[in-house]
């Protein structure tokens, strides 16, 4: 049976990284190639031995697709392409292609230069990996090869994040990566058309969450910031420039304007200029409101938010707010874990005199979001990755009941096969169509199939239905007509003609619905069966009835010749 196979790589229940293998229509695709941030050894890389025990991956994969620049989705890409070995195409959106190498280099620097690890990719490997990238535009179909095509859709979540549709013939899979169904201040919400894929693959890490409203989180954040500023303290926000930072900057800027506040806000990052440049470059990836305002002024040039100067670090009292993920090994990560003393290289220990607050502003889809996406895309099957099966049964039931589709939840390392029912398109010749129409009867109806006869020619990757005569002509064969004969003997004292006449009369009386003719040349024709009567001179009473018919199955079965 034709099927689609999905295997999330990874062991056990770990949810720290995305790397999913899909086999569809004879093609193998790798979706995302993430690094697990919780491990310091080889366990952080996906286990590619599932694809091949040793050796390069090029011949086993038709393409690799990266959904967005977060390290748990692209962190292992240079390792996969340069250290394990893959030379095929790597697809990602333009913003992802621009930002990935920055993140990867940053990550490499911390891991190798600061932590001294050895089995890791180099700067050159990151560059070589990015040379294999083919950028994608939204809603544009890209032919990977003659049979495999892919298309990217807007996913929200972060700049450049995409959901991808993969299509081979009439089978298709949609992979969501990380997405968000509610728009925020700088990004829109995920959107996809009713593409009705055979399978929709979605992350389910937040599927059992009912999220606090964005307003409440923002209100709490602004309250903390405002309270600190009112006390005369300062606000310091170390955050990766291309993640939630833009969201918070817009939030703070708007609040500062509304409340007419004068205190400065410092934005600590080396990427500020680059960040703004990327947002200007990729303005079409932000939401409509930003694009509209962009004409008057650049939303990412802030009046109240400035670059940080190191001399401010020693003042007591400032509140540090760190939305989002602080990579393990960084000072931020240590502080968030409650450390009060930090050992800095080349210096004595530092005391943490800051009041620390941790808030999560990440944009993910919850159960309601997953249901909304299913309603949008109308998949025939659903597959959830990165959830614990025991904790997802209710969601699975809910999806199955509401949409009458099957919902799969493979464990990492487990392969799920989804049977598809692909339609096979066949071209029908005009002559054959006309002939069928001429036969009369009801018009073709999708709900009530009608039997027809023709010859199927499979040639040069195409399927055609033509009349038998045309097929014979194309194939250069001559037509043979088969006629079957049968002789029946019976004793009758009458003349041959009279015997024939009696046969005719008898048949006429028992086969009332059939056309029976008595032709003057001495034959009786029942539909297309020809009946002749002969006898030999030696035995005139032994009549031989010759029956002859051509191969028309349905008619012959109905006639009961006695």
């Amino acid at each position: 049976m034709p099927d689609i196979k999905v295997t999330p790589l990874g062991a056990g229940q770990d949810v720290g990284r995305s790397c999913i293998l899909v086999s569809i229509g004879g093609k193998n695709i790798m979706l995302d190639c993430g690094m697990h941030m919780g491990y310091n050894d080889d366990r952080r890389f996906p286990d590619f031995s599932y694809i091949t025990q040793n050796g390069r991956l090029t011949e086993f994969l038709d393409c690799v697709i990266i959904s967005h620049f977060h390290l748990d989705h692209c962190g292992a890409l240079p390792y996969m392409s340069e250290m394990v070995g893959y030379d095929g195409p790597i697809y990602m959106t333009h913003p992802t292609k621009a930002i990935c190498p920055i993140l990867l280099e940053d990550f490499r620097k911390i891991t190798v230069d600061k932590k001294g690890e050895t089995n890791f990719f180099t700067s050159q490997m990151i560059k070589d990996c990015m040379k294999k990238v083919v950028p994608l535009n939204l809603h544009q179909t890209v032919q990977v090869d003659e049979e495999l095509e892919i298309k990217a859709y807007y996913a929200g979540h972060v700049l450049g994040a995409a959901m991808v549709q993969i299509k081979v013939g009439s089978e298709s899979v949609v992979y969501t990566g990380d997405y968000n169904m509610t728009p925020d201040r700088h990004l829109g919400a995920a959107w996809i058309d009713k593409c009705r894929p055979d399978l929709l693959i979605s992350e389910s890490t937040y599927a059992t969450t009912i999220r606090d409203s964005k307003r409440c989180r923002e209100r709490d954040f602004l309250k903390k910031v405002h309270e600190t500023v009112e006390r005369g303290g300062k606000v310091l926000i170390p955050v990766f420039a291309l993640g939630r930072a833009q969201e918070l900057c817009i939030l703070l800027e708007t609040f500062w304007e509304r409340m007419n506040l004068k205190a400065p806000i410092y934005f600590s990052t080396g990427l500020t200029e680059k960040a703004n440049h990327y947002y200007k470059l990729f303005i079409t990836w932000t939401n409509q409101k930003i694009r509209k305002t962009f004409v008057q002024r650049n939303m990412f040039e802030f009046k109240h938010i400035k670059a940080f100067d190191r001399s401010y670090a020693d003042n007591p009292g400032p509140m540090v707010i760190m939305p989002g993920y602080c990579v393990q090994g960084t000072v931020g990560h240590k502080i968030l874990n409650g450390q009060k003393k930090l050992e800095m290289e080349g210096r004595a220990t530092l005391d943490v005199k800051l009041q620390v607050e941790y808030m999560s502003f990440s944009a993910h889809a919850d159960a309601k979001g997953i249901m909304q996406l299913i309603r949008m895309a109308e998949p025939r099957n659903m597959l959830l990755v990165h959830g614990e099966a025991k904790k997802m049964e209710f969601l699975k039931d809910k999806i199955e009941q509401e949409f009458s589709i099957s919902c799969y939840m493979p464990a990492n390392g487990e392969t799920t096969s989804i049977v598809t029912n692909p339609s096979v398109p066949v071209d029908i010749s005009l002559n054959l169509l006309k002939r069928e129409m001429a036969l009369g009867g009801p018009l073709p109806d999708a709900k009530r199939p009608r039997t027809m006869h023709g010859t199927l020619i499979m040639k040069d990757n195409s399927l055609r239905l033509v009349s038998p005569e045309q097929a014979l002509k194309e194939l250069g064969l001559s037509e043979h007509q088969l006629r079957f004969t049968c002789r029946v003997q019976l004793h009758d004292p009458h003349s041959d003609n009279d015997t024939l006449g009696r046969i005719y009369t008898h048949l006429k009386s028992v086969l009332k619905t059939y056309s029976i003719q008595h032709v003057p040349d001495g034959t009786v024709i029942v539909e297309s069966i020809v009946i002749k009567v002969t006898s030999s001179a030696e035995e005139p009473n032994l009549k031989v009835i010759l029956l002859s018919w051509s191969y028309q199955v349905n008619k012959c079965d109905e006639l009961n010749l006695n």
Partner: protein
Amino acid sequence: EAIPQTRRADGPITHWQCSQRRNRQIRYKDLHVFQLEHPTKVIEWTGDKNICVAGYTGSRSEILELLLPLKLYAGENQGLCAERDFKVQHGGFSEEPIESLIHISGTRCVVTSGSSSSTLQIWDIGGDDSDVIKRTGVINLKSTSVKGCKIAPGLTDEPAVLHGSCISEVQLTEIATGRVLYTVAKESSDSVSGLQFVNACVFLICASDGTLFMGDTRDPSTCHYPLEDSKSGLHWAFGLRSDSSQSEPSGCTVARLSSSGHMLLSDLRNLQSPFCQTQLNVQHDASKNDFLNVSWAPVLDRCLSVSGFDGTVHIYNTINWSTEGQSPQPVFSHRGHEMSDEAKYSGSPPVVTTHSWHQSRPKTILSVATDGSLHVWDWVDKITDR
């Protein structure tokens, strides 16, 4: 300093919160706003940190057991706890809209009554091995009630449920066996507004017309206490305050609330004459009788809360209430449900369907409304919390 023009571009809640902040009045210690997929009219505690909610719109309803946001419990480390979301821990499906849901203390069993069947449904919420709430049995009722049969958990060791939609049908049924342990021997077709056990044997029933019935499972007769001045057309709800679930009647107060805002407070020792009567300043709308709710705060002394008239929850301190005085002022009013985005755009403003006090945190309340909103809030008493 000049107070700048506020722009409402960011929505009513932010505006409302900002205006409070500028006035230097901190109204909430905490406020979390959530949106359930389907509105609920029940909130029932199934544990220290867990509640059950259930749908009542649409023919098929979901029952959900939710874990409260961990940030509420983080205490000292609240700053470092990022968890501000509810988690769905268990879920199940019911074939009918759910009107009432009760939890049997000490078990993982809940009982529901719906608006379209003549049975009570018994469910097992489940443990760690599965997240599906499964139906384990039914209790057959004598009739179907559109408003759903009223139910209350028994307080004996053997799980039982007190149920009835009209006075004469009230009975106590053992859950495991279906055995009827007690029936109210009262020929009255008055509909039940609510019922509750005071201790293992003594129970109270409040009829829709405000009459109170007190019974004891050891005694076949029940006493009834009609209202002195019963006005027709009003619907009554009640709230029982007791010091613990095994109280003697002497420690208990009953509050009765009418759909026009009339409030009666009675001591269980003297249900005939309420010790306090007052009129709350609320709008009467007969169509909203369904959601009338009066609850006593479990920790704060003589503090009660009222909802169901509109999109607000009012909290009162009854210590200073007197019968002759003016309409009492609430010490706090939560208007969050009226101010949501959904409320702005829909034709009819949302009504609070029910609310519930946190079992141990003195001022934390959960409230839900007809638009599916679910709020968890910790209010500040202007007077005492300076």
